[in-house]
């Protein structure tokens, strides 16, 4: 194609001058009908479970740094659910818990935004995130969500601490409480909207794992920071969050098939198991002793916070592990093709 001319309408000029006739020559020799595999060659080793190119991954694994992105998932959840708890505490006359949660939500959302910017390859261009609004990009949606939630959480905390403009403070608290659950849940879509098998195949359960984990973390923060007399609803919230997280995670592992395997293996498996143990300990601790002892409540709260962080790191690493092994990409796709083939044949 040395003398072709290319335009928007197509190529003008030369076409390939010849078609190489590979395999041409000994026509008819060794040919046995049209049956696949009937080409007369010796049977090879029994077919492997799946084939790959030298074991190389098919996907390019995420380039995200675990501390930044898993940390972002954790802090975003802590902030979002914390804003809901703060509004609830304020409405039901628990001012110390409300104040502590508003401050923790501001700190968490600040930290998570910093982690996000830090993870960028070009942090100085972070403002390009608000260049467009794209519902097909969970990261774009999330950026706009943070742009709305961040100032609300910030105003709620600042006005609470300074005591200025109480009416505006209540509005900011309510606004943060409404946007908070979205901040806690959207990060699951952020992970699921990729080709990474352990994340994508878990897209139904992952939002529930994330909001459950977020509720447990925020309740844990309240148990750490608020006095015992105000923490009764926080203990119930911890049970609700931990229960939702556990149930959704178990459902995920049952339903997602091979793609769920990484959640029980390697680094991810270790984080997930640590998360479950810490969650059980924190929940039991706060239910049994959290209403009596300040120290026990704080300790249980810390366990719940650590549990939530472990779950997020576990989910993050499960994704990386599933992207790094071609098995998780090839085998489910092969099964899908086989099912479709059977359906088409019948």
């Amino acid at each position: 194609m040395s003398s072709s001319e290319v335009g928007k309408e197509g190529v003008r000029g030369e076409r390939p001058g010849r078609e190489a006739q590979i395999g041409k020559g000994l026509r008819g020799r060794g040919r046995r009908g049209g049956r696949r595999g009937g080409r007369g060659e010796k049977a090879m080793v029994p077919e492997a479970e799946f084939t790959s190119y030298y074991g190389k991954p098919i996907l390019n694994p995420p380039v995200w740094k675990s501390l930044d992105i898993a940390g972002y998932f954790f802090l975003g959840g802590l902030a979002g659910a914390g804003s809901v708890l703060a509004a609830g505490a304020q409405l039901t006359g628990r001012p110390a818990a409300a104040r502590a949660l508003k401050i923790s939500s501001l700190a968490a959302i600040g930290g998570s935004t910093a982690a996000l910017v830090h993870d960028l390859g070009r942090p100085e261009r972070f403002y390009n995130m608000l260049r467009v609004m794209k519902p097909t990009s969970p990261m774009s949606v999330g950026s706009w969500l943070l742009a709305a939630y961040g100032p609300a959480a910030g105003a709620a905390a600042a006005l609470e601490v300074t005591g200025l403009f109480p009416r505006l403070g209540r509005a900011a608290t309510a606004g943060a409480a409404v946007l908070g659950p979205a901040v806690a849940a959207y990060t699951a879509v952020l992970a699921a909207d990729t080709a990474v098998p352990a994340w994508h195949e878990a897209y139904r359960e992952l939002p529930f794992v994330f909001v459950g984990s977020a509720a447990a973390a925020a309740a844990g923060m309240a148990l750490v920071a608020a006095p015992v007399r105000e923490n009764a609803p926080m203990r119930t919230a911890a049970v609700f969050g931990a229960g939702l997280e556990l149930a959704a995670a178990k459902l995920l592992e049952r339903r997602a098939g091979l793609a769920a395997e990484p959640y029980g293996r390697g680094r991810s498996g270790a984080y997930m198991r640590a998360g479950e143990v810490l969650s059980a300990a924190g929940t039991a601790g706060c239910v049994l002793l959290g209403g009596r002892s300040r120290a026990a409540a704080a300790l249980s709260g810390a366990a719940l916070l650590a549990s939530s962080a472990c779950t997020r790191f576990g989910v993050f690493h499960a994704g990386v592990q599933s992207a790094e092994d071609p098995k998780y990409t090839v085998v489910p796709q092969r099964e899908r093709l086989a099912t479709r083939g059977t359906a088409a044949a019948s």
Partner: protein
Amino acid sequence: MGFFTDTSVCIGCKACEVACKEWNAVPEDGLEFTGMSYDNTQGLGADTWRHVAFIEQSKPIGQNETGVEHGAAPDASGMRWLMASDVCKHCTHAACLDVCPTGSLFRTEFGTVVVQEDICNGCGYCVPACPYGVIDQRKGDGRAWKCTLCYDRIGVGQEPACAKACPTDSIQFGPLDELRERAALRVDQLHDLGVEDARLYGHDPDDGVGGDGAFFLLLDEPEVYGLPPDPVVTTRDLPSMWRHAGVAAAALLGGLAAVFTAHGREGGAR
């Protein structure tokens, strides 16, 4: 506009890799000896926009017979060598483009998918979104890079550098309709010659990514070449993902509201 890569005539010369690097000023992508046949490039990435795969199999191609005496080598007679030049698929439904939060990735007037490097802030979202493992973040630079289908060349009436350099016309560039027609004829021809393994990959506009802008004629299953057998654009499930997340967010808000309702005001019930 797109590519049809006929791997049955690829001779593994890597002229496409070199031409691509030269034209696009793509940096060095690591000097490693992998032991993977003649492939030391390994796969597509930020600094590898064309990648020639080398596969050694003990299978003959059709009734191919070289007439060369292999002597005592036990399996040499049934050996075949597959070579294939891989590239960005420029999907009709491109996940990288869908998930890009800055609008840096866009679809050109030629139907190709290109990164605007002056916009990209290196968020890295496109990297795990790509079902083929094509686009990647360049170390030290921070931005995402991939094949542009030589946007600058086709814009001025030149074919892409790799297609231009390919000495066997394994890489063919042109309008997709025409390439698909040509590819179908080529598969028929190969089947007639007894090369029953020949099949097209990525040519079907009804597949999971709406058809590839760069499709292939392969001589074995796609995964043998490091390609996914049935890729699906992740954003196909996005409406359902948003619904699930919406229900989860509502459950969080409702659940916690119920908790406070049950407990009532401080000093009240329980």
